[in-house]
């Protein structure tokens, strides 16, 4: 058995029985092939930030509650913490490259791929459904594309990011909470019509 075929995100049982409305105003896709890195670094350490940016090929977001998109998606979680989302097959290489670049700094880079599940929530009622469980102001003016937050959704902690004006939002949730959160989303989105699926992102 190869490592890649053995990979499971854990939502397979949920998806096997998830309902699908004929007219879905909310689309929820489980992105099956994402890798995640947690980076701790003092954002005042200019050299370390610069070297990280170089390896990533895209800026490390320094403004609070923002994310940058490029080869990877980098979410600001705090003044010294980021979550880097990348392709599952690229995570190991990125870990070694970043670890090497950061070796001479006080930094912590951890592969946390197994600990997170990425959901892509879109459709015209996406923000409404998320608002049922999230106390942040999700109005497009307040929480537009490029913004992210580590926050609560229902009774789970998530990283929530606005991706585009479709609207599309990414919800990254701790693995053990993902089944609960999907069940909550199914409940909250039911009156709007909801369709669950699994996708691979390239």
């Amino acid at each position, binding site marked *: *058995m190869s*490592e890649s075929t053995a990979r499971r995100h854990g939502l397979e049982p949920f998806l096997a029985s998830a309902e699908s409305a004929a007219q879905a105003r909310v689309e929820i896709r489980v992105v099956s092939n994402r890798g995640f890195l947690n980076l701790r670094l003092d954002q005042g350490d200019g050299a370390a930030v610069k070297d990280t940016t170089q390896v990533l090929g895209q800026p490390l977001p320094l403004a609070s509650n923002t994310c940058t998109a490029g080869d990877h998606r980098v979410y600001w979680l705090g003044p010294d913490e980021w979550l880097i989302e990348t392709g599952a097959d690229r995570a190991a290489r990125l870990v070694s490259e970043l670890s090497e670049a950061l070796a001479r700094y006080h930094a912590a880079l951890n592969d946390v*791929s*197994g600990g997170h599940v990425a959901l892509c929530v879109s459709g015209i009622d996406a*923000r409404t459904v998320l608002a049922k469980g999230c106390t942040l102001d999700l*109005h497009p003016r307040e929480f537009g594309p490029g913004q992210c937050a580590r926050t609560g959704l229902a009774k789970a902690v998530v990283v929530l990011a606005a991706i585009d004006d479709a609207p599309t939002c990414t919800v990254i949730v701790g*693995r053990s909470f993902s089944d609960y959160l999907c069940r909550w989303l199914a409940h909250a989105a039911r*009156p709007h019509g909801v369709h669950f699926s699994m996708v691979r992102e390239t």
Partner: protein
Amino acid sequence: MAVAQPNRLQEGGRIDRSRPLAFSFNGKACEGFAGDTLASALIANGESLVGRSFKLRRPRGIVGSGAEEPNAIMQVGEGAAAQPNLLATQVELHDGLVAHSTKGWPTVRFDIGAINDVFGRMLGAGFYYKTFMYPRSWWKLYERLIRASAGFGRAPGEPDPDTYEHMNAHCDVLVAGGGPAGLMAALAAARSGARVILADEQHEFGGSLLDCTDSIDGKPGAEWATGVVAELRNHTDCTLLPRSTVFGYHDYNFLTIAERCSSHAGIAHADAEDAPQGHGDGGAAAGRGSGEAVAERLWRVRARQVVLAQGSFERPLVFCNNDRPGVMQASAVSTYIKRYAVLPGRRAVVFTNNDSAYRTAIDLATAGAEVAAIVDSRPGGGGELAGQARDLGIPVLEGHVMTDVAGRHRVRGASIARWSGDSWASITPSIRIDCDLVAVSGGWSPAVHLHSQAGGRLAWDDSQLGFVPAQARQAHDSAGAGNGRRSLVECLADGVRAGTEAVSKLGLKPAAVEPPVVALVGENPIEALWRVPAAKDADRCPKQFIDFQNDTSVADIRLAVREGYRNVEHVKRYTALGFGTDQGKLANINGMAVLADILGKSIPEVGTTTFRPAYTPVSFGVGAGESVGPLYDPVRKTALHEWHEAAGAPMEVVGQWHRPWYFPRDGEDLHAAVARECLAVRNSVGAMDASTLGKIDARGPDVVEFLERIYTHNVGRMKAGRCAYGIMLGEDGMLMDDGVMARVGEQHFYLTTTTGGAANVLNWLERWLQTEWPELDVYLTSLTEHYSTIAVAGPNSRRLLESLGCGIPLDKESFPFMTVRPAVLAGMHVTLFRVSFSGELAFEINIDSNRALAMWQRVMEAGQAFDIAPYGTETMHVLRAEKGFIIVGQDTDGSVTPVDLGMNWLLSKEKDFLGKRSLRRPDCLREDRKQLVGLLSSDEQTVLPEGTQLIEETGQPTPVPMCGHVTSSYRSPCLGHPIALALVAGGRKRKGETVYAALPGREPLPVQIVAPTFYDPKGRRQHV
């Protein structure tokens, strides 16, 4: 139809006569129209008796037309979906609606409880405290009887089948109330580009405009309101919430709104027009009770500015028998006539102390009723409207008051007397008028509930005799009638002002909004008339009610004062004034005024009672929202969960985690399965999902210093690749958490915590790093979710791992006990720990959770050669207890030090650590502290229940002093007898002694104190 609805007017009203609706009231078939409330339909059907009062069981009828209704409390619906405690005035009629009165047995017309009214004089305020005190031992019986007769309605016995949800919302301006002022405020805010939420408790916006006869900008009021709503709907950032009651104003401008989405419609037809954008109640056609549509929604709103425009309540007047069915608020009579086209009576007397009731007299006369008289307490009578009433031929008795009404189930007549102006001097009626309706107006009380909930102050306004909002405490303002504005002209203008000021405060440029043109009607001032005197004094005359719902009368308030109550809050509690759903809407001002009068104080001196949420009753369902059933608490699942489920393992809930408890084979019960699993681990090999352990990556130049301060052992002495059992203490010296920690590099550690402590420990460590020791360069990262942990334990565990193909040697010399190695196992990258929680040779495989299931399956496949047993939490507990390994939170309880546990060897003498100083407190040095010991049952049979108290000897008188308690207890399959861990006072020095286990229902059992390690005390098996 006319026969079916005897009081329905032939034309007019905002009802849809093409949509007749059938409903039943107390089992009787009735008919109404779409657009009716239950109350208007009951009046249309001539149902004037709708309930019984709370205490005296007096017959009661509909008084009001909205949230202030005190009497028409209904049980609506049947079975699981029944809703108790609904006001008929707020229930929209729907086809098939089933309503019952909530008081009155056997029937509301013939109520045995009405005997209470006969003895009413004995049931004054406080009777409950005086009557039911003796004999004291009977209180339990009294309480049961009182509880059975108290309350309105019954909660259904079955689970609520409906669906509820919560919605978080943010806005610039929240407008509470969609009457004239609220509409103007919302319009001013929306036109200025603000994000607006406009909430109104009724199903259509307009409030008083829906039954007003004034024309606004040349249009009827209702039509003008429709135009405003249409414009608001076109503003994209304006959310319109009809059927939505703003019921709570909390701190930081946080407000709660209960929206009735489909609960108002039995077979729902949620009005798509009114549904807020994007909140389509799709599937609403499924209706209440089906569980499909959202029945009610709780809006949790953070508003930057709030405009409170809830209007005002018309007060009753206080005279004898003023609670008889047929005595109504004058304004409600007008509403029923004009909005619902029902005529509440044929021959009316209007009683007032202000001008507004003249409008009702005119409405009655216009609708074809006879108005026998307008009784106006003011010697000078009314203003412009009085002239119009006279023009219609209505007799006006100025300077007169109504002293009493006749009739029991329905008003039959009114007694009138000349008014002397003295509330307490006896007065003899000189006129008697036959009538079937009394329309009363005692003036208007602004609905200041939300303003008060927000912490706002109130000021007494002598010109209109009411409390009006004064200083605000949060970002709110009041507008319209709720702000003490009386005329429509003022209300509209005040709404514009409040909306404009709200957006100005937000830094937006206010759009120009002109208040519409309305004619001003000249009024004469109101006169104070708090109590109408009677022929006998207040204690002997027929009841003069102040609070209809709670049966509080003038005599009750006098009694409270006589018995020494002076403060309005005390009087409220003694008399129940303003309790219940009423929350002082009708009763408060009259009650305070009467109290002030009795005390000889002014009303502002007496002051008001506190207004609290909820403004109107809110269902439990909407409070719970989605958090019911499986969504009540998150279920956390490990990466191996589906395998455990497929294997048929029952789950044990540990925190929010669901962990496999045991893995039954061939119908085994818990004991059989655990015995087999234990023996498999002791004799061959077993595997357990230990993924729920907390895991923290800690690294940085100062990580050793940091961990030295946290853990009690010498962290710095650990070599890279070594593991250690570590404990951390609270500042009080008590054991907080434990776990294995590994040094994976010079400046890099991997910490594990208990399952339940994972999040708390990380917070605890971050708190010290961020707030106390910011100079330490350490980063912590939670890896709990990333790594799954598979414990492989038993003498064959090494051979099993070798058979999977392991990239590193696993022999004792290369990979000794308490070390950690990265490895490739079965072709997958893992971190292997040689640690043991069972006392056997064991390995813990840490692997990326994405691959954990594959690894587990490989372990199980390869384990078949060794007859491997997957084992659950119960076997884990037995195995660790046999070894005397503690579980934090089970064998400890926050009052246990490591010394109590015999862990002195873990406490470094060479360094300081959190909690160390506390261990030197005299109490921590006591020799007789409870200490961890083992216990053996003398009969070698009894498994002591965990929590069992231990006593020194039998036969002592109660209360028997206790010397300890059992913390863990199991039958040990490999030892063949029960074992237990216990905390016993001074226990460590008492080995070999016998104490007694106090067992329920049997003789205390002698138990022997032993060392807490039952199996392999030298620990040889884990070192092989």
